[in-house]
Structures are given as structure tokens and as C-alpha cells.
């Protein structure tokens, strides 16, 4: 059966479908709180499955959904509020947070770049993978700033979050780390948004440290993007 007639779907269909599948994924996650039921994974796979079934091109899909993408801008602005609310904590513990963010970011940038290079990935993909550990809106900004593909960065960043939550859980069984700072930094630096949710399962302190490390690492990477671009030539 040919689905060619479906190519005439109005762009708004994809906006509504994405919203609907996202709502459904949130509903499933509210009932089954497991990593595989993360709305990030479910909504993404459902949207991909629908898009491939109806054979829509990426350009046509984006025509109906780019307004959602532009809401990442104000959402990034909103990150200021959690930072503001934890200003006392930051003032007291800034050296530890700074060490985590600086060391973590440097290691993240160089390890991804060296790994991508040694796996023989093409240069534009190498650059898209460099920011895979920071939160998605910042990762897309950094990727486009250093000559990568923001969309590939979005995919690899999301996969990093999903797998990172599982990897981090496993690592904590073997690593000799006890402080909430180290455990929180591990998830905030390595698995951004999904990791922060995971860190909150360990405790309130771990969670808020992970959240702060995630936002601060994102900002540090955006600020350092011109330097990264210059170093990685």
C-alpha cells in the first residue's frame, strides 16, 4: 500500500502529533517510573516510528514543529531561577563545584573528541559529539559554534543522558566515592537532565548538586566554545 497521499499532511499535524505522543509518554512515565519509560525515550521513539511510517521528510516535519524547538530559548533563560534559588549553597561550596565543572568539562571535551577521532568518524560528526555530556540546549549551541551539526548533537546528547543514568548507577557500586558532591557531580556532569533525576533518587543534596553542575557546565561550555573551536582544529 502506498502512503504517498499522506505527504500532503498539513505541517500542523506534526506539531499536534508530537504534542500528543509527548503527553502519552508522560502519562506512561507517571505510571511506570523506570528508566526505559522515560518520556525522553518513549516520546522520541514514538515520534520517530510515526514519522518513518508516514514517510515524512525532516524538512516537512520541522515545518510543523520548529516553534517547539524555539521554546528552548526561553527554557534556557529559565535556568537562571534554580541558580538564583541556590545562591547561598553556591557561595559556600563554589570551589568544589568549580573543580567538578572545570575538570569534568575538560575531560568530556577531550575524551569525546579523541574517541570520535580514533573511531574514524568524519570531522562534522566529531564536532557534534564534543558537547554530548552537557544539557541539550547548550549542547546544540556549542555544536553549531564549533562546526558540528546541532541536530546530531541533540540525538547523541539525549542518548548520553539515557545511557548515562544506567552507567552511573553501575559505576557507583564500584567507585570509592561517598560524598554527595562526588555522586551528584558524576550524574550532573555525565548524564545531564536524566542524570539529575537519577541523582535525586540518591538524595536531595545529590540531586541539587547534580542540577547545579549540569547548568554550570552548560554555561561554561557555551562560554568556552570559541576556545574549544580554536583548540580542536
Amino acid at each position, binding site marked *: 500500500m502506498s502512503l504517498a497521499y499522506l505527504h500532503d499532511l498539513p505541517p500542523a499535524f506534526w506539531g499536534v502529533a508530537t*504534542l500528543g505522543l*509527548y503527553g502519552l509518554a508522560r*502519562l506512561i512515565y*507517571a*505510571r511506570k517510573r523506570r528508566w526505559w519509560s522515560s518520556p*525522553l525515550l518513549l*516520546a522520541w521513539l514514538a515520534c*520517530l516510528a510515526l514519522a518513518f511510517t508516514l514517510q515524512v*521528510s525532516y524538512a516537512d*516535519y*520541522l515545518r510543523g*514543529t520548529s516553534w*517547539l*524547538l524555539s521554546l*528552548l*530559548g*526561553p*527554557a*534556557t*533563560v*529559565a535556568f*537562571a*531561577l*534554580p541558580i*538564583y534559588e541556590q*545562591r547561598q549553597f553556591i557561595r559556600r561550596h563554589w570551589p*568544589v563545584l568549580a573543580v567538578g565543572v572545570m*575538570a*569534568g568539562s575538560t575531560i*568530556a571535551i577531550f*575524551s*569525546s573528541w579523541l574517541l*570520535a577521532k580514533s*573511531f574514524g*568518524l568524519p570531522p562534522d*560528526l566529531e564536532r557534534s*559529539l564534543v558537547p*554530548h*555530556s552537557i544539557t*541539550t540546549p*547548550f549542547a546544540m*549551541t556549542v555544536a553549531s559554534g564549533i562546526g558540528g551539526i*546541532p*541536530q546530531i548533537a*541533540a*540525538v*547523541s546528547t539525549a*542518548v*548520553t543522558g539515557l545511557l548515562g543514568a544506567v*552507567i552511573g548507577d553501575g559505576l557507583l557500586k564500584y567507585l*570509592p566515592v561517598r*560524598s554527595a*558532591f*562526588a555522586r551528584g*557531580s*558524576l*550524574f550532573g*556532569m555525565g548524564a545531564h537532565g536524566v542524570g539529575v533525576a537519577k541523582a535525586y533518587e540518591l538524595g536531595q543534596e545529590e540531586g541539587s548538586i547534580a542540577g547545579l553542575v549540569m547548568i554550570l557546565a552548560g554555561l561554561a561550555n557555551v562560554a568556552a*566554545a*570559541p576556545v574549544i573551536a580554536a583548540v580542536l582544529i
Partner: protein
Amino acid sequence: MTAALTDLAQIKVKIALAVNGIAPPKGWPQIGLLIAIWWGSDWLARLTGLPMPGSALGMILFLLALLSGWVNPAWLRQGSASLLNHMLLFFIPAMMAPLGHRELFGLVGLKILGVIVVGTTIIMTTTALIVELYYRQRLKAAEAKS
């Protein structure tokens, strides 16, 4: 009887979770205000040619406004929470990249997966160990002082 009661309590929690899970965002006027901040800072970033996207500049300006006391955090708390809570919806369109990059389903995709798994293991291990060592050192230094 008690079993039935706990069942009922569990069902209530489940319903509450389900409702929260799909609750539509609240604080629309506040979201509008955040969009306005982003627009303004995007324009400012382009005007001044700062090597920084408008969204990051907007976040810094918003933070400065909060710290200086010009902006009451209560004015924007609900809108910010709504946007952050639903952020993953906003990057789903970007994550649909495989529609335009079929090569991700082949060897290239596997290699990317390899970079992610090995990279994340390295990043997590080293970050956690460095932070732990530094934290212990600081604790020891603080004890020595007192």
C-alpha cells in the same frame, strides 16, 4: 480492611501522578515574559556581536536582575518551572535528525554509540574521583584549621 485502604491510597497516588504527568503547563503570562526576555536578549546579542547565543545572554541578564533585586523571583517562578519541566518536548524536533541522516542507522550510529558509552564511563569516573579527592582534602584542611 487496611489492605483495601492502602490499595485505595496507592490508587490515589497513581491518579495524582498521572494527572501531574500530563498536567498542562501553568503560568502562561510568565512564560510570555520569559519569551520576551529571550527575544530581547537575542536581539541584544546580535546587535552587540557577542560570541554568545541570545538564550545564554538572557539567562545571565535574568540572573543578574534577580541578584540585584530588580526582579522578584515569585513573578517568574511558575513559568520557569513549567518551561524546565517540559524542556524535553522542545528538543524532540531536533532529535528527529535520523529522518534526514539515515547514516545514523549504520556503522556510523554504532561508532557514535561507542563514543557515548566509553566517553561517559571515563567522564563519570574521573569527575567523581577528582571531586571526591578535592572534597576530602578541603575537609582535612578545614579540620586542621579548627
